[in-house]
């Protein structure tokens, strides 16, 4: 059964139509990758799902409940979490605090100003566990802004999964990483998204074909194909529309 | 003077740090509390210079008072703020000073008045005496009067009484326009002008009664437009400072040629700024002779002050009056205790340098002396203001007896 459904989603900025009538089903538990040339509208699609942008038309439903034009925090509370193309953390707070903030809502703390965080053994234990999981345990007390790039990406992933969401959306999680860093990142992603649903935008084809169960190809705001990696590889339209281009680059 | 300021300050704060208020010293110490920094500095420091000069010229150089004790003036800067006044007052207390000179802003005077009566009630034996040389809010010697407060300036209603008489005499004036700052003094001026004019010249029409926010008006022309279109024959305003200057300026610029009756349109830069434009248009009501000054003694005194402070004028002679009467009271009581001084000051009759008699009414501690209306001009000006060549020439004077008004004061002198 599908966890996230996009029906004829359109997004216009003034005249220009960025997303044209996109319909897509994300199956529960699958790892779904969205690929496509720059400016195809991949990030826009993410922004639409996570509620940063409002839909121009169409509908998005999560667990068969429409989340179209809901506020980002409402959507996040429903169990959709995301990372960003450019690192997006809380730079002046410590790594530990970053993760703990990620945990707060789904640990039912809400806007409480009567709980003392220091006293929440359980919460802090969870935080430390998660820190270890993303390999930042020894950096807990450093201001997040001072971390190395790869570590910041890891931290962001950590914040994203901290919310315990079922649907995790990662926007180019390994962009700008060295090969080895990227490998670790992928390993990490596999580990932390175990038993969850993953939607990722990525340029590195090896990673995409390695990680994804299904791939959607987005070109000029339209999904021209959505299938298993093998099928996508052999898909003629994708070939000329996209992979060809990549091959040319390489 | 500055030398004293800074030495004092240094020693005082030293005293503070050693937490030992310096008490029981030889000199008779008098606190002067007024704005000595910020926008109103010039008025405050000019007052300080006059008090300092009076003390040195009249007493210290003559061997002091009470058998050789010098008078020492200790300045306190209240930035013309009621809050800061509270702080400075406590500083005065902790310095063991018992007499405070204060003049500027009725708001400050009222705060000080209530603070002092509170303090004196709670600390018997350490009372403080308030010498108010300039704050003209009537309530200080009426509903809010206090045994510990003495006023050496005529209050607003007394002045308005004379001013309205003067206007009433002028047959050409058929209508007046009242404009003032939107606060207590402005209100007092407006209310009483209307009341008094109704009594004295019912035929005079009040064509305008305008309040504008204090110190917030960029441009008075819009107000002047209303004045013009109301065909007023005269304008009355209680404005002071920049609001006074801007208002007068706008009236003059609009080509409107009618008399402007004011309280504070002279000295401290205002006379210079008005210059020739204001000539024979602007009139002041004040409680002390202007040019021509009556006595030789008085003239010499002003000259001596001018020599000592070329950049300042003897703007508030009442400061000198106050100090002289204070000292007389001390000598009479042979004491510097506020209680004895207060008793001695009550109903004191004192002839000052200008050869006129001053009366401190015991009932409400309000001074009475001749009141004058002077014009801003450069003719027959022996002593000008702001070294501008322009100054005040007295046109109309009222003897002390005719300035007396009733008071609602019910004073309860403290038991001793």
């Amino acid at each position, binding site marked *: 059964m599908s966890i996230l459904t996009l029906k004829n989603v359109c997004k216009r900025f003034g005249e220009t139509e960025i997303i044209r009538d996109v319909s897509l089903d994300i199956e529960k538990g699958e790892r779904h990758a969205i690929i496509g040339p720059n400016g195809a509208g991949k990030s826009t699609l993410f922004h639409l799902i996570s509620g940063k942008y409002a839909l121009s038309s169409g509908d998005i439903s999560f667990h068969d409940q429409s989340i179209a034009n809901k506020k980002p925090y409402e959507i996040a509370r429903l169990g959709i979490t995301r990372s960003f193309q450019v690192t997006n953390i809380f730079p002046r707070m410590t790594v530990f605090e970053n993760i703990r903030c990620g945990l707060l809502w789904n640990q039912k703390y809400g806007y409480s100003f009567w709980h003392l965080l220091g006293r929440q053994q359980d919460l802090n234990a969870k935080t430390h566990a998660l820190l270890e999981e993303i390999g930042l345990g020894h950096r807990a007390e450093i201001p997040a802004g001072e971390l190395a790039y790869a570590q910041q990406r890891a931290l962001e992933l950590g914040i994203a999964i901290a919310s315990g969401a079922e649907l995790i959306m990662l926007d180019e999680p390994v962009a700008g990483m060295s090969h080895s860093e990227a490998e670790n990142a992928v390993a990490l992603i596999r580990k932390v998204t175990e038993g969850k649903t993953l939607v990722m935008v990525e340029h590195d084809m090896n990673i995409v074909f390695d990680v994804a169960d299904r791939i959607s190809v987005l070109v000029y705001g339209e999904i021209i194909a959505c299938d298993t990696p093998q099928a996508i590889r052999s898909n003629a339209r994708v070939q000329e529309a996209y992979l060809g281009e990549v091959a040319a680059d390489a | 003077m500055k030398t004293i300021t800074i030495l004092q300050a240094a020693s005082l704060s030293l005293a503070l740090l050693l937490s030992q208020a310096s008490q029981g010293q030889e000199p008779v110490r008098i606190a002067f509390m007024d704005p000595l920094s910020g926008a109103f500095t010039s008025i405050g420091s000019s007052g300080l210079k006059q008090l300092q000069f009076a003390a040195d010229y009249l007493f210290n150089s003559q061997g002091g008072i009470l058998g050789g004790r010098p008078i020492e003036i200790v300045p306190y800067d209240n930035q013309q703020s009621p809050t800061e006044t509270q702080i400075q007052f406590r500083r005065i207390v902790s310095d063991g000073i018992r007499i405070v000179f204060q003049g500027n802003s009725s708001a400050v005077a009222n705060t000080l008045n209530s603070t002092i009566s509170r303090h004196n009630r709670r600390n018997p034996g350490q009372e403080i005496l308030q010498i108010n040389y300039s704050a003209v809010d009537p309530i200080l010697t009426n509903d809010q009067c206090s045994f510990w407060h003495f006023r050496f300036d005529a209050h607003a209603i007394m002045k308005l009484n004379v001013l309205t008489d003067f206007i009433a005499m002028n047959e050409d004036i058929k209508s007046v326009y009242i404009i003032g700052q939107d606060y207590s003094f402005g209100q007092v001026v407006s209310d009483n002008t209307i009341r008094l004019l109704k009594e004295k010249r019912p035929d005079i029409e009040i064509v305008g009664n*305008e309040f504008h926010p204090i110190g*917030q008006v960029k441009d008075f022309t*819009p107000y002047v437009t209303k004045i*013009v*279109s109301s065909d007023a024959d005269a304008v009355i305003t209680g404005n002071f400072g920049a609001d006074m200057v*801007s208002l007068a300026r706008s009236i003059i610029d609009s*080509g409107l040629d009618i008399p402007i009756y004011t309280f504070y349109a002279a000295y401290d*830069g205002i006379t210079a700024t008005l*210059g020739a434009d204001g000539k024979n248009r602007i009139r002041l009501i004040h409680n002390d002779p202007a040019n021509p000054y009556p006595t030789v003694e008085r003239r010499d005194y002003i000259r001596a002050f001018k020599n000592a402070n070329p950049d300042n004028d003897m703007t508030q002679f009442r400061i000198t009056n106050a100090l002289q009467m204070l000292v007389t009271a001390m000598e009479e009581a042979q004491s510097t205790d506020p209680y004895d001084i207060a008793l001695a000051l009550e109903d004191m009759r004192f002839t000052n340098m200008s050869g006129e008699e001053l009366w401190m009414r015991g009932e409400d501690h309000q001074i009475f002396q001749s009141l004058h209306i002077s014009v801003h001009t450069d003719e027959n000006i022996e002593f000008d203001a702001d070294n501008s060549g322009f100054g005040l020439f007295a046109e109309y004077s009222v003897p002390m007896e005719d300035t007396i008004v009733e008071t609602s004061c019910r004073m309860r002198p403290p038991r001793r």
Partner: protein
Amino acid sequence: MLEVFIFATLNGLVTGLLLFMLASGLTLIFSMMGVLNFAHASFYMLGAYFAYSISLYLGFWGGLIFAPLIVGALGALVERYLLRRVHEHGHVAELVFTFGLAFLIEEAVQFFWGPDTKNYRSPDILDFPLFTLFGQEFSAYRGFMIGISVAIFIGLYHLLTRSRIGIIIQAAITHPHTVANLGHNVPLIFMGVFGVGTALAGVAGVIAGPVLTTFPGMAVVLGSIVFVIVVIGGLGSLTGAFIASLLIGLLQSYAIASDLGMPDLLNLLGLEFGRDHPLTDLWTLSLPQIAPIMPFMLLVLVLIFRPTGLLGKREQ
């Protein structure tokens, strides 16, 4: 009544245009660097004071020429050596810095020129009534003020639309980031714009000084109002600033001219309240009384209902 209306309009025009001279500079600076310059009105004050000191030797016209240049130079230096330092600490730091600068300039003015009002006069050549209406004079100097302001507005408009630098600035206003990538020396442009902006404030000071009296408080009186205008007009919109300036100028002028107040309103509603009513102050409120706070009411309303301002596109 008619004459009151006409003169109210003229006065509103004078104030409005004067405000625009400040607002235009402030808007330029904000559009370019995203800095709301709290000290802008202080530069206006400096303009008046420099002009006063110069006029003592070279007369009014000397002041009109040199004072703005000095102020502009000062502004440029402030941008180059101080503001740029703070820039890296973010906008809050910048705002706070200009706030402190305003504070400092006021104190400095009192230090150098003293706290008294200065006798800064308009030139004798313009010391005649331009025209007399219903027995009320409209001084030539005020006409001159209108003239200068309009001239500056037109000049600025041409500079921005015609000249090359103008085009760059325009671009910077709409796309602040791209301009740098186009290989323009952005720091220099910043310095220039800040200089010009403050110089404009200087001009305003020079021509306003004689009418609005030159005293240390003159910056405070105008400062926040100019802020309000820029925000109401829409951050980064010159036209918006222009409209807002005139709007506020006229609004205040009409409010003062009118004698309307709560009593009239109550009479209209047929209500009656005694002087001793606890809310008596409210019932006796009059339009002239609240004229000076109108801009702030407007500000709050605009910000609540249209945070981008009248013509603004960008939000902070």
